[in-house]
């Protein structure tokens, strides 16, 4: 899991005085809103690495054409947690990974708390921008409690009944730090 420091982020929003500029110019490392992306998509150069910020109400199937192929048009998708207890983005992430085979970065932003980390990881996020008051150290610890889970997930598509659990139990038995898993 990568922890994003917003001050040193490669990706930049394209905002004017009144919010997002309706028709941004094609430049590298732009993080567009979904509206901006829709506005420029047809003229946007292929091969230009681009990020899009998605509302958590979006049906991610509508992005399918931009995610396919060896070089998808979108390289980073930013999913939002307006409140940390709003779990819609977990389903978006799961579908982007398992159904649309999206291989780029999936980033969680918004009200992102350390105790969400296990869920984020298991549903396919590989980057998070924690809420400002959250501790990276606590977030890393939150990832370390479980050796394995019952149901499959993006990290481990096989449910417990399709795995050899003795190895997981052994790993857990052999001491602290080997609870390599996830969980909340």
């Amino acid at each position, binding site marked *: 899991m990568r922890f994003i420091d917003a001050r040193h982020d490669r990706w930049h929003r394209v905002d004017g005085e009144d919010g997002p500029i309706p028709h941004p110019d094609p430049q590298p490392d732009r993080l567009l809103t979904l509206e901006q992306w829709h506005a420029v998509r047809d003229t946007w150069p292929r091969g230009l690495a681009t990020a899009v910020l998605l509302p958590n109400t979006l*049906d991610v199937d509508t992005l399918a054409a931009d995610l396919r192929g060896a070089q998808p048009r979108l390289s980073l998708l930013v999913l939002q947690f307006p409140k*940390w*207890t*709003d*779990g*819609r983005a*977990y*389903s978006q992430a*799961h579908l982007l*990974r*398992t*159904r649309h*085979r999206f291989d780029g970065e999936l980033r969680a932003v918004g009200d992102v*708390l350390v*105790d969400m980390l*296990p*869920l984020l990881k*298991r*549903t396919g996020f590989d980057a998070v921008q924690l809420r400002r008051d959250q*501790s990276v150290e*606590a977030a890393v*610890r*939150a990832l370390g*409690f*479980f*050796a*394995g*889970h*019952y*149901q*499959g*997930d*993006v990290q481990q*598509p*096989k*449910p*417990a*009944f*399709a795995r050899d*659990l*003795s190895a*997981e*139990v052994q790993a*857990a*038995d052999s001491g602290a730090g080997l*609870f390599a898993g*996830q*969980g*909340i």
Partner: protein
Amino acid sequence: MYQYTEFDRHFVRARAAQFRDQLRRHLDGELPDEEFRALRLQNGWYVQRHAPMLRVAVPYGELSSRQLHQLARIAREFDRDYGHFTTRQNLQYNWIPLARAADVMDLLADVDMHGIQTSGNCIRNITSDALAGIAPDEAVDPRPYCEILRQWSTLHPEFAFLPRKFKIAITGAGEDRAAIGWHDIGLQLLKNDAGEIGFKVLVGGGMGRTPVIGSVIGEFVPWQQILVFIEAIVRVYNRLGRRDNLYKARIKILVKAEGQRFVDAVDAEFRHILEHDVGGAAHLIPQSELDRVSASFRLPAGIDPSRQAATPRPAADTPPAYRRWLERNVQAHKLPAYRAVTLSLKRAGQAPGDATGDQMDRAAELATRFSQGELRVTHDQNLLLPWVHESQLHALWLAAREAGFATPNIGLLTDMIACPGGDFCALANARSIPVAAAITERFDDLDRLYDIGDIDLHISGCINSCGHHHSGHIGILGVDKDGAEWYQITLAGSDGSTLSGAATPGKVVGPSFAADEVPEVIEALIDAYRRERLSGERFIDTSRRLGVAPFRAAADAVRRATAYTAGAAA
């Protein structure tokens, strides 16, 4: 009973360790109340009127003697020496200080127990028929499927923060004793003509402010596909369920609003998972896993299925109290020489479903001595011994009587369902326990109770409906009016059992009543039934045949308070 594997044990210990870490951060001030709240809820910790409340998961109601002894110990050492068995087959404590919460979770983990998903907006602990695996009318034993579903839903990463709570109930019997129509998902196991096993799937039932009975979304989903089918339902709900209004957030509202579009969305999602998703088909249940889990649910070692019933008719000089107990508290079993025996937790002086630490120990001892060390928590808030040999009934009766569990009132008026109500619950508008106590006191005569016969009385202290008032033949709902406690009475609701008929919410019997009127109103309703009943009719039959009007007139005749002017809208 399901036997924990090493993996399962590691899992609950890991959960307890994770909770301890969260609790420490909370107590250290790193994790504010509001954020700790959702985390503790998913481990069963509410904060109630007096102290935190802990709801311990009793998966599909199955308990061992060893577990119940541990629950007794926790009651004694951490609570004020009692616990409350709930309609969802769980156990609640009311007085454990939060600072000791992590220690309790460790003690639970020691006996393969936890509080995972007994609360919060997630898939809750799964409930089932208290007679699962022993009922004569059972087509398929639901317990292995309950366990497989329990494991699948436990810490599901995608479905931990749904719009609202999500409850699943399963039955494998002809009679619905699990109220499946009242659940977000209700599952009925069926065996078709070819001998194949599948699920009839209901979706969108629920109580609360808008009572709805679930509708059929799958007539026969093969058992192998059930995890995937439920994943499809819950994903559609997670994506589309309302989050703008707490009272419209349950799946029942989405199902009602979308109708056939909801069904189509689930069908499409189901196909997508199986045809496209990485890992989608991996959740088809293999025969080997069903076999592995089913092995835990074979007959206990001490049970001999070949024993024939020898049931001698009780002699003419059998004490009437014993005969009544045989009639009310003893049920038929799929094995002819065995019986299911209910230990009544409904008696004067204690709230419905409550048990002291000592009573829990006594019940556990009875289970060890008479029932292969196994008990069930029933939907009606009693305990049940599932493996009693008929030759032991008299000895059990004597022992149960001594321990205070032999009240022969199962299915009768005083065997009522009640939530903890305003005495404990921070959500409640009104108290339930004093109402239950007043009714128990008024109807303390057994002859009278027997004359009244089978009846479901359900009491909820607020519209959240933990006391299932909607499904009572008589329902009592606490409502708040200008800071005072009032009670709305409903008639002829049904949980879906054979006695009660197709699941349906009760109809309101006029404006609410004042607290001190309630026992008299109940008596008036009962008297109206006794006047009007035809031969062989039970309360539910008469109330359904006549409708609300005559009962309303009877209830109005004993009104004293000015409920009409206080708020006739109720």
